[in-house]
């Protein structure tokens, strides 16, 4: 699945408050045009009317005051500015007033270099959906996203790991954005009213792969969403009958390794390609590479880029096995 076309996603104004924000924007646009023209039109007119060849020296006026005019061009713009302030405020108000938790789904969002993770509340069977969303250069899109039902208030509780950096969760089609800050929890909410897929971009600069820190929000019909939510499938669109991923491969995807390493080609993304790594290094090396990546840094790469992964022993072993199997 590709990243949806941003512009059509954008124009669909898919969140309930997007129309408010757009209204404020266009109000500002027209007021700006009017104010701008009150400066630019007289400027052109005077430059033409009083052009050098058209004015006799005796006709030049040295007028330096006109109190009514000066009051007008102070007070009228002031009034217009206050109108804009007001609409800036009201459009913020809807964006920033969180709905009651009882009538919303609260989803935890974690942004880290350079992936987004979502954690849902437990479903009836007690299963907790955890989704990792990373951009895949190969397909030019993100594989999994945030799945939400149409017409449902959703609260995002966002944070970033304490040793990470600031990101921002930006959904152009919803006109919403808020920073995701290590050590803090920030919130935003939305209610999507159109089925579709909408891009999520990281809008706060976060380093090497900042421009690939995409995700997407997939808005679904209620019934489709419920069906998926009560299941334990990774995503509503993944074929349940397809052979299950090996434990190692799903760990590899869930931890966002794929965002930085390609494993079936030689392409260098952020880190080195892991294709055929099993032939070059033994299991102990690979284990260290996951737990303490800065211990050995291959030629041409920098320390501090790959975060240390504090995973359980068994998971590390599965990951190592998976890497060794990638020929």
């Amino acid at each position, binding site marked *: 699945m590709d990243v949806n076309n941003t512009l059509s996603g954008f124009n669909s104004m898919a969140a309930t408050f997007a129309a408010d924000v757009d209204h404020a*924007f266009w109000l500002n646009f027209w007021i700006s045009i009017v104010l701008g023209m009150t400066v630019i039109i007289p400027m052109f007119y005077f430059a033409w009317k009083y052009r050098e060849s058209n004015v006799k020296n005796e006709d030049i006026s040295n007028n330096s005051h006109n109190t009514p005019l*000066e009051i007008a061009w102070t007070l009228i713009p002031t009034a217009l500015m*206050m109108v*804009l302030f007001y*609409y800036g405020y009201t459009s913020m108000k809807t964006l920033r007033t969180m709905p009651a938790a009882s009538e919303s789904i609260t989803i935890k969002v974690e942004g880290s270099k350079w992936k987004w993770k979502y954690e849902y509340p437990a479903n009836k069977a007690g299963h907790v959906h955890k989704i990792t969303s990373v951009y895949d250069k190969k397909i030019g899109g993100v594989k999994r996203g945030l799945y939400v039902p149409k017409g449902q208030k959703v609260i995002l509780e966002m944070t970033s790991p304490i040793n990470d950096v600031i990101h921002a969760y930006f959904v152009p089609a919803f006109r919403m954005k808020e920073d995701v800050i290590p050590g*803090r929890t920030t919130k935003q909410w939305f209610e999507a009213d159109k089925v579709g897929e909408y891009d999520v971009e990281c809008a706060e600069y976060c380093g090497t792969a900042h421009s690939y820190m995409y995700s997407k929000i997939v808005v679904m019909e209620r019934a489709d969403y419920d069906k998926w939510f009560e299941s334990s499938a990774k995503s509503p669109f993944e074929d349940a009958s397809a052979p299950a991923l090996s434990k190692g491969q799903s760990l590899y995807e869930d931890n966002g390794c794929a965002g930085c390493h390609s494993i079936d080609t030689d392409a260098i993304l952020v880190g080195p390609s892991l294709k055929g790594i099993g032939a070059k290094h033994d299991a102990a090396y690979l284990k260290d590479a996951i737990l303490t990546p800065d211990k050995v840094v291959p030629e041409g790469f920098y320390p501090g880029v790959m975060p240390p992964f504090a995973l359980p022993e068994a998971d590390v072993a599965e990951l190592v096995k998976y890497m060794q199997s990638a020929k």
Partner: protein
Amino acid sequence: MSKSYFDETHCAIGHPKSTFMQWMLTIDHKRIGLMYAAVMFTFFFVAVATAFVMRLELFAPGAQFIDGDTFNQAFTLHGVIMIFLFIIPGVPAVLGNIVMPLMIGAKDVSFPRLNWFTFWLYILGALVALASLFTDAGFADTGWTFYAPYSLNTGTNVIFTLVAAFILGMASILTGLNFLVTIHRLRAPGMTFWKMPLFVWGIYATAWIQLLATPVVGITLILAIMEKYFGIGIFDPAKGGDPVLFEHLFWIYSHPAVYLMILPAFGIMSEIIPTFSRRTIFGYRSIALSSASIAGVGYLVWGHHLYTSGMADTAKVIFSFLTFFVAIPTGVKFYDWVATMYKGKIILSTPMLWALGTIITFTIGGLTGVTIAMIGVDIHLQDTYYTVAHFHYAMLGGVVFLFFAGLHYWFPLVTGKMYNEKQAKIAFYLQFVGFNLLWFPMFIAGYYGMPRRYFDYLPEFQIYHQFSFFGAVIFITGLTYMFVVFFKGWTKGKPSGTNPWNATTLEWHMPSSPPPLENHSKVPYVDFEPYEYHHGEPVVKFDYETMKRID
């Protein structure tokens, strides 16, 4: 022929014989201004070249010829040079130094040796900043804003850039101090504050900002350095610090800093418009006071950079409200300038073309700033290309354009020569068209959700980046041509005489052109307004030997 400041100078130490040492040690405000100009425009071209590399890279989605990390270093280098080495010192260091003392009838600034020291401090800061380009870890990749904790964690050489910004801040404080004292103490007798040319008012308001706001960024940078190397736990959440605190401290300085850039530039506008309208300025006091009030209110609005940073909603509302009050005095100035043209005699020489062009571009820059002062709208537009386009319209289409206007205006004063007007106008039109093509499409891209600091982008945005690229080509062609015209003017231009524009302010009443070492022959007595015209001719005339009025 009488000697000009090119022939003789005072030096900080001793009386060196060699011309080279005379320049290195000079304490003459005009020479120091020229040296700033030489260094600053060299950096400016480096930053423009870096920008062009970015524009080339952005020509199509996907990686073209540099990788993400290099791109990140490129916009940091571009931003750091443009902000800290070029535009913040910019107009005050070059035109403030050269013209302000002449305008108030002073022989030099109050502390000429300090002025010399400041220049070399600036050079030191610049060298430290650039040194990191040649170290292993490479130039910083933080963006010019150095946000924590990114700047604390990155492997690149941030320390050099932070130290450099600190040193440059010191230089800025000293310049501000020097100019404040000069304007208070060295105005010619009779010249009250209400008789100062408006450029001097702009420099004055700016000097207060330099003096009062810059220490905040100094402290912030020191704290960041202590955090990075000693882990004091103030900004880094992993050590119990708060990264948003860094953002606040950073913008407490950096927002007033944008007024520090624009106020002297507005001062240039206020000189050019009456001169080329051949009449007195409209609303002198409201222009002067609006500079002062912009400088004052400008301190209280930094939070408008943090609408999406997890700041309390109440704080957002207050910051937004105050921000609109900066827009108003700015708007009033524009009405005053346009009203100055009413029933004047408009002479479209090159400086005037630049000034009028800026009325268009800065109006766009200012009004798009109003868009992002609206909280709800900014939540969408923050950190997109809409914001990037806004500040390029304000800084390039505002400050830099007016800087260029000032360079054309005072070129004959500084060099005693005239450039070729026809060619200079061609350079203007190229830059004006190129600039708009370069930045206007970015408003649209930003509105549609193109984030800033993206090295690669979704295919939908390609068309805007391509327009922008061609705009950059035209703009840079015009820019280069402008400097060629200056160069030819200086080497081969016709002598301009002391007052080629028929202007009224004191810097045009020099005994010789270019001016002699210690400026006016005698200190004039100022019992007139700065822009007095009668029937299109300057009212006040001087005998340049005695500086007595002869009109």
